[in-house]
């Protein structure tokens, strides 16, 4: 029996960094993308009411309770996205379940799925779980991490089944603009592949040059587009595990069968909480938006003070920044790793060593850029979902660490 599979699925590097961080006292974490807020009160109250009214103890319909799907469709309509709540919306146990169920429904073993490089770390394992092969498409850092359409087309083969991407992008915090998205859609039609558009950070757009555009607004590809949204980040509900997907009814039917096999239905208490989020938490959403913008400005100011260490593309959205580490700095820190960390270095590269040094010496947890794809090497991801105090403390610690190294 083969015990080691080249396609084996490992624990996400983000969670690995969090685990390492949890074993070291006094660490400030800018690693995992978790909002610093508690779930808003109106959402919690509605969930408690649903529990008290005896609504949550039993399975809901596999695609979710009707009231929630109807409100989701109404909200989507406000954003120029049109879906039939009865046939085309499935409420899922987090967006990663939506993604995995979709890939399981669409892929045959050995099918290829294009993913931007860098992109969210959990996409690769999800593709592998579904028997697919992730194929990285490098983004152009100097072009604000945009798609290179020629590079994208070069990587399309007869085995290409889908493109999976996150817009706004994690880890870069940048947005894919309308023109690029239309070019991607044209390629999808030309080469007949599906598009999974994960838009978990769409509510946190700070100052992009143009209005945020979603491919779900484009009717011409509605038979090949799967739109995914999670309540986790927008409404501080990561622990509730609740999200949804919207797609053409033919695709929805296939995905629903997998979703039913995987989880039967999304947690019913969380479905009621999600309903409250859409109906009652607009104020909170606006409040979070303002706070994240302030934190984005703070982290950029602190990064600007470390120009000799980092250069970065200013994020226009989400709550991540993805600075490139100065080559000389990286060489100095990653040249002679201590024996205890050699294994980690072999698994990754300079960004791993850099992140581990930051964790162990500066007591600041970040995520090594290599975790997000080959183009992520020489970068680290910092999350500004954390409080301003945490951001300031983390940068104070880093500044001290770099000063001690005389960098």
């Amino acid at each position: 029996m083969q015990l080691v599979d080249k396609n084996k699925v490992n624990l996400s590097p983000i969670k690995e960094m969090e685990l390492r961080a949890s074993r070291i006292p006094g660490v400030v974490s800018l690693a995992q993308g978790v909002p610093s807020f508690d779930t808003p009160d109106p959402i919690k109250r509605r969930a408690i009411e649903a529990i008290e009214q005896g609504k949550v103890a039993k399975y809901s319909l596999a695609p979710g309770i009707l009231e929630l799907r109807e409100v989701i469709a109404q909200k989507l309509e406000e954003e120029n996205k049109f879906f039939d709540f009865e046939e085309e919306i499935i409420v899922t146990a987090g967006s990663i379940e939506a993604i995995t169920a979709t890939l399981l429904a669409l892929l045959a073993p050995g099918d290829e799925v294009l993913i931007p490089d860098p992109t969210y770390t959990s996409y690769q394992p999800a593709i592998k779980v579904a028997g697919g092969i992730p194929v990285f498409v490098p983004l152009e850092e100097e072009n604000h991490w945009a798609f290179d359409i020629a590079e994208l087309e070069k990587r399309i083969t007869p085995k290409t089944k889908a493109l999976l991407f996150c817009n706004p992008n994690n880890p870069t915090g940048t947005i894919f603009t309308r023109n690029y998205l239309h070019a991607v859609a044209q390629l999808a039609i030309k080469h007949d592949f599906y598009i999974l558009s994960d838009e978990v950070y769409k509510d946190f757009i700070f100052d992009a040059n143009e209005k945020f555009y979603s491919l779900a607004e484009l009717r011409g590809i509605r038979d090949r587009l799967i739109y995914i949204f999670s309540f986790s980040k927008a409404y501080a509900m990561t622990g509730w595990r609740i999200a949804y997907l919207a797609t053409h009814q033919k695709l929805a039917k296939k995905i629903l069968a997998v979703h039913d096999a995987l989880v039967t239905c999304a947690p019913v208490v969380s479905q009621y909480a999600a309903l409250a989020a859409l109906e009652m938490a607009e104020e909170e959403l606006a409040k979070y938006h303002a706070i994240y913008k302030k934190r984005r400005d703070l982290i950029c100011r602190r990064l600007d003070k470390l120009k000799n260490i980092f250069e970065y593309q200013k994020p226009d959205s989400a709550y991540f920044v993805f600075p490139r580490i100065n080559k000389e700095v990286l060489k100095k820190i990653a040249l002679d790793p201590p024996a205890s960390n050699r294994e980690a270095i072999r698994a990754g590269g300079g960004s791993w060593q850099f992140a581990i040094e930051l964790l162990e010496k500066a007591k600041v947890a970040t995520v090594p850029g290599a975790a997000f794809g080959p183009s992520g090497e020489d970068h680290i991801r910092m999350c500004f979902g954390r409080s301003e105090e945490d951001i300031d403390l983390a940068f104070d610690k880093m500044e001290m660490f770099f000063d001690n190294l005389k960098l």
Partner: protein
Amino acid sequence: MKSFLKKFIQYYLKVLTKFVLWRHKPFIIAIAGSTGKTTVKEYILKFLREKYGEDEVRGNPRSYNTEIGLPLAILYLESGESSFWKWWKILIQAKIKAIFSGKFPSKLVLELGVEKKGDMEYLLEMVKPNIAIITNIEASFTYPNSSLDIISDEMKTLVERISEKGTVLLNNDDARLRDLAEFSKAKVITYGLEEGSSAKAENLETDIEGQSFKFTFNDQQEDVKIKKYGRHFVYAWIIAKVVKSIL
């Protein structure tokens, strides 16, 4: 304390709502059912506003349709949610509006939200609809659901309360609703895609532009295109068209 406060607000708003409706006597179109109420309301508002103008027709803001939501919708006030002070302000505003406000729309399009036995009776103590529309009776759960029979009884209450001069619109594609027709004193108009619907959609097709169908009512035919997906939009369009033709 919270429960006492809720009951007080509920009672106070109910009295003021009854007073306002007695004073202005608007034509009331009530929409009930498990899903699709908001879509139907939006279509009716759109169609009637085309005919009567923006100020003459009002609907529930958001989906205010419960024992507290409905009076707020009629009095045109926001919810105080969990804030005592907001509610205090709202109760004062409600009294001023009820007694002094001269302007009131001639037609109200109201969603009636029903979850348990007795809800419909309570709402109908406040509003006396001229037209009642029932969209469907559907469950959100997979197990045999006795609560659907309770909801069906609540819908029956609504059908029974519409006077001979009124109209009841029932979804002919929903077996539970078809059976309610016999309890009505009012004129019943059935709508849907199934045979036997008085207002009927046929040849329903979906493409990237949306949905298209042939609509037949009172021997009149019309080819319809709507840029949205889902059967509930077809129903909403039909209902709005029928309501506009009645008024």
